């Protein structure tokens, strides 16, 4: 249309100019040959001629344009036919590829949804795992604290048992001292008994002497009466001394019996103290063992706490990564959905293009006939 249109216009313009020049030359010639009136008539005839020429030129121009368009269309048809075939083949390929893309995008969208769902489950599980790990870490921490408390209590018990052992040893020494004093007291009681025997014999002898003095006084008759009174008083004193020595002997025997009982009690107490010492030794040994075991438990619980914290940190990191992966999967899902929509549009476009190509092909076939 461009080249042929420009060329026809140039031809029309040049024709018009030549016509106008010829007209002007005729007019000038006529003006010289004829008068004004004739000239006016000539001018009017020329004007009508010019108008007719312009109409002719316009008609020619239209014809030329028509011809030019028809040629262009013909050229296009001739030139575009293979291209239409190629477009048709390409459109078919595009449609096929778009269908494959659509299927792939659909499958990818399904996979993305499943992946997102699975990752959500994994995320939930990981959160539970993090919570469980944290709970384990807290429990292990509490166990560690309790183990430390138990260790301190055990150490206190150990110290208390040691002090009790020292106290028992002191009690044992005191018991031994008491036993020695009791034995000494028993010896002194025996000595008192010996002295009492002497005093008792002396009182008895005094009593006998008093009785004999009384007898002598009675034999002396009236002269011995006052002496008999004195002798009787002496005898009474001797009786009292004898009675008192008996009381003292009873007391000394009671003291001796109590002393023997105390000695036996201290011996029993010493045996009990020995048994208590052995038991406290066992107790101290048990406390030491408990302390050692509790320390082991404390160390183990600390290691558990440390490991659990590391595990928690690792699980949290895994959880964070899975959250990122989930987010990426969600984005991928969105992207896939967008791709699917684009592919659907592409499929629709290729289908429309295919229809257009078919229509054009039919139209061209009809025109060529």
């Amino acid at each position, binding site marked *: 249309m461009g080249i042929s249109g420009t060329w026809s216009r140039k031809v029309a313009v040049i024709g018009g100019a030549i016509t106008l020049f010829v007209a002007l030359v005729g007019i000038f010639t006529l003006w010289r040959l004829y008068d004004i009136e004739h000239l006016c008539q000539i001018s009017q005839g020329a004007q009508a001629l010019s108008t007719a020429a312009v109409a002719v030129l316009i008609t020619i121009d239209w014809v030329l344009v028509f011809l030019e368009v028809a040629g262009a269309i013909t050229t296009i048809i001739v030139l575009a036919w293979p291209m239409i075939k190629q477009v048709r083949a390409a459109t078919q390929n595009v449609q096929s590829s778009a269908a494959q893309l659509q299927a792939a995008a659909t499958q990818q969208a399904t996979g993305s949804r499943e992946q997102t769902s699975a990752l959500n489950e994994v995320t939930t599980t990981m959160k539970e795992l993090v919570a469980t790990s944290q709970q384990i870490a807290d429990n292990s921490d509490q166990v560690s604290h309790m183990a430390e408390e138990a260790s301190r209590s055990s150490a206190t018990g150990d110290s208390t048992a040691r002090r009790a052992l020292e106290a028992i040893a002191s009690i044992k020494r005191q018991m031994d001292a008491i036993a020695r004093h009791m034995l000494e007291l028993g010896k002194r009681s025996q000595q008192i008994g010996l002295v009492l025997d002497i005093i008792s014999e002396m009182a*008895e*002898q005094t009593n*006998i002497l008093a*009785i*004999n003095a*009384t*007898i002598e006084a*009675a*034999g002396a008759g009236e002269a011995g*009466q*006052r002496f*008999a*009174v004195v002798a*009787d*008083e002496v*005898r*009474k*004193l001797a*009786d*009292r001394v004898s*009675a*008192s020595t008996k*009381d003292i002997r*009873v*007391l000394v025997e*009671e003291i001796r019996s109590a002393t023997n009982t105390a000695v036996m009690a201290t011996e029993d107490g010493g045996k009990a103290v020995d048994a208590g010492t052995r038991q406290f030794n066992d107790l101290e040994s048990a406390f030491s063992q408990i302390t050692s075991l509790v320390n082991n438990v404390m160390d183990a619980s600390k290691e558990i706490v440390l490991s659990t914290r590391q595990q928690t940190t690792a699980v949290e990191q895994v959880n964070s990564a899975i959250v990122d992966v989930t987010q990426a999967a969600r984005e991928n899902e969105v992207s896939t959905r967008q791709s699917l929509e684009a592919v659907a549009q592409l499929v629709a476009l290729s289908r429309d293009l295919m229809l257009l190509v078919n229509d054009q092909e039919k139209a061209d076939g009809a025109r060529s006939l």
Partner: protein
Amino acid sequence: MDDQQFNLDVDELRQSFDSAFSAPPRSFMGRQDMLLLVGLWEDAYAVRMLELTGVHRVERITPLPGATPDLLGIAVIQGHLTPIFSVGVLLGYPREDTGACWVLLASADPPVGLAIPELQGYHVMSADAVSTSLAGSVDRAFVSGYLHVADGVRTILNVAAIMQAIYARVGTTGARHKGE
């Protein structure tokens, strides 16, 4: 011995001891007898001190071969070799052993010892505390009366009669009881 009884005994002892020195001197008023309270086996007896010259504790009596059952043996008393007779055997009791015992020296020349197993005490009595009419198991030849005391009735032995019985048994002629 409980504490309360012990304190009571001590107080009583203290009071009696103090009163012995604070009370005015007393004398035996009226007709009174002084008696030794003795025990023979399970029975209680009394002996008038006026019939004795002394009382002694003998730790050992040396038995004599061929002696009569009532002659326990001999013992040294105040430097004198003294025959010791068993009052219990004379009164019909079983013979006691020859261990330590109390010996009553009777008023005799030479002295004769009367062995008794138990010396129970000393008693001063008024004459009206003695009765003469009380039945007993002992031969009344050896009884001079009966003493009524708080713990019962005691038979008062007649030492002179006992000495006569001894003299009669051993056939001694030189010995004489001072009471005779």
